[in-house]
């Protein structure tokens, strides 16, 4: 059991437990904070996989942007206390059943499948430095990259559309 594996296991444990805690926390603020921790642990995974740039982007986008958005919304709506209505038992049961089911099914399939034999390929080439990523992103993936801007544009317009008060015109 190598150090790396131990690190992986620790990180995985943190990821999973914080993910669970996110869901089980009654207070949305707590959920958010657990989620941030979860994201950080995932960033740890990225680092472990030696993709530093991605890790940093991940932290910036998720923890920095998305989670702030969440927290902002929670604050805005004053949701920092548990207001959730009592969940019917059937809902919880259904959730748990489907969770178990989907977990079991997916894991069973992957266990059933024949294991990957042999060494993993190591080309030794640089494939995940910022430089390479940038090249790929702006050469091969130029079109999707631009298209992602359309996506963000749409989201932007949409958010404005949904939030902006209408000037009533006669």
């Amino acid at each position, binding site marked *: 059991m190598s150090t790396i594996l131990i690190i992986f296991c620790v990180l995985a444990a943190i990821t999973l437990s914080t993910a669970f805690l996110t869901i089980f926390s009654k207070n949305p603020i707590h959920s958010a904070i657990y989620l941030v921790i979860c994201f950080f642990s995932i960033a740890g995974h990225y680092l472990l996989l030696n993709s530093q740039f991605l890790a940093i982007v991940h932290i910036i986008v998720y923890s920095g942007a998305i989670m702030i958005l969440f927290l902002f919304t929670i604050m805005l709506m004053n949701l920092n206390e548990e207001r959730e209505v009592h969940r019917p038992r059937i809902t919880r049961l259904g959730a748990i059943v489907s969770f178990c089911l989907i977990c079991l099914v997916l894991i069973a*399939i*992957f266990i*059933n*499948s*024949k294991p*990957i034999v042999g060494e993993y390929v190591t080309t030794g080439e640089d494939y995940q430095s910022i430089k390479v990523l940038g090249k790929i992103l702006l*050469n*091969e*993936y*130029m*079109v*999707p990259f631009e*298209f*992602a801007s*359309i*996506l963000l*544009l*749409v*989201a932007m*317009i*949409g*958010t*404005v*559309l*949904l*939030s*902006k008060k*209408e*000037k009533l*015109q006669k």
Partner: protein
Amino acid sequence: MNTLIAIIGLGVLCLLFEIFNLRKAIVPIIIIGLLGVLGLTISEFNSTESYYNNMIVVSKFSSTFSSLFIVLTIFLVALGHNFYENHQSKISDFIAIKVFLLAGAVAMVSFGNLAMFFLGIEVLSISLYILAASNRMNLKSNEAGMKYFLMGSFASGIILFGICLIYGAMGSFDVTEISELSQSAELPIWFPIGIVLVTIGMLFKVAAVPFHFWAPDVYEGSPALTTALMSTLAKVVATATLYKLLSVMNADISESFKIIVVVISMASMTVGNIMALRQTNVKRMLAFSGISHAGFMLMTLLSLSTSAGSLLYYASAYSLSGIAAFSVILYVCKNRDNEDIVNFHGLGKTNPLLAAILTASLLSMAGIPIFAGFFAKLVLFNQTIQAGYLALVIVAVVNSIISVGYYFKLILAMYTKEPNEERKGTPVIIYAVAVIAIVLNIALGLFPSLVLDLLS
């Protein structure tokens, strides 16, 4: 590719118009622009090319479907002129979103790389979430948006997971490469799982049973024009994409997968039709009808190599009649808070032309001859029998019979009930859209070869 660029350009133009305070010109200019794009697309019809490292692949399939999408968008934009007349300050946003949505749709049918596929579907979905929720003061619209958003993101997650597994198996997002690699033996099981997950995600988008639950609620809650868009453009896009996805990745559809398709197709038709029987809200009814039509369109997946033409035909027939029907619904339910069937009482007396158009479009959906819907079903049945699924065809036939029940409920309401109030104001543009759509539909019915032969 040019199509895509042109459409995006139009979208940006639309936003610019708002800046320059040219609101009034938006709708006409966009329509003209889209017509231009349509011409462009058609002119490129025969060129099969791939652009930018195979990100976009223009083929007959993509250009025909793109043309269909453009046509539908033209109709929808035109209807928007009337629909958004009380929301002038937002009209540019609405139109822009629709244009971008069209861009997403075009990307979805012409992708050469799963990244484009994913982004395309997300552009489409996010636009739809926004449009569904766009009536922000209306709780129903909010609810619809929320439901659609939650379930849609959920489905997106599953699609993403599927793409990830495909990537894991293939080490590439390029469909050509994937297709070549899939020929070789010794694939990790991730690949088929990935395909299945992506398929399931797409089944959600086309609202096939059992992933259909969102559709009726969302259709009902959304503003009518959005419903029109969802039930025509979005559904057609999703189906075409699913078809393209499965055919282009050469996913070597196994027998058991086909059985799944058969079961889902049967279930969609049956559930859609049966549930539609007792609906009183017209949009909701059409949502269920759309579910059943999704079931029909899924039949094309059983003979992937040959059925592109029939899918195109079915999609055109269905969406054109949908546009016609919705333009009547827009007219009837304008300034009303619901689309209950009561509103349609006596339409045959107060506005015979629109009643006739709605009747014709419903008949087309029911598959009565001379309307395109009939031939659509016919070629579909033909292909499915050829593929050896007679039982499916019989279920489909039985479903066609059931479907007549609720289509006729609406027709009966129009012709046998007394009108409950006078309607005034007959917007020309609604007439124009409805008439053109239904005429196109009938023309397709009279000359099915025009479309059927495009993709063969």
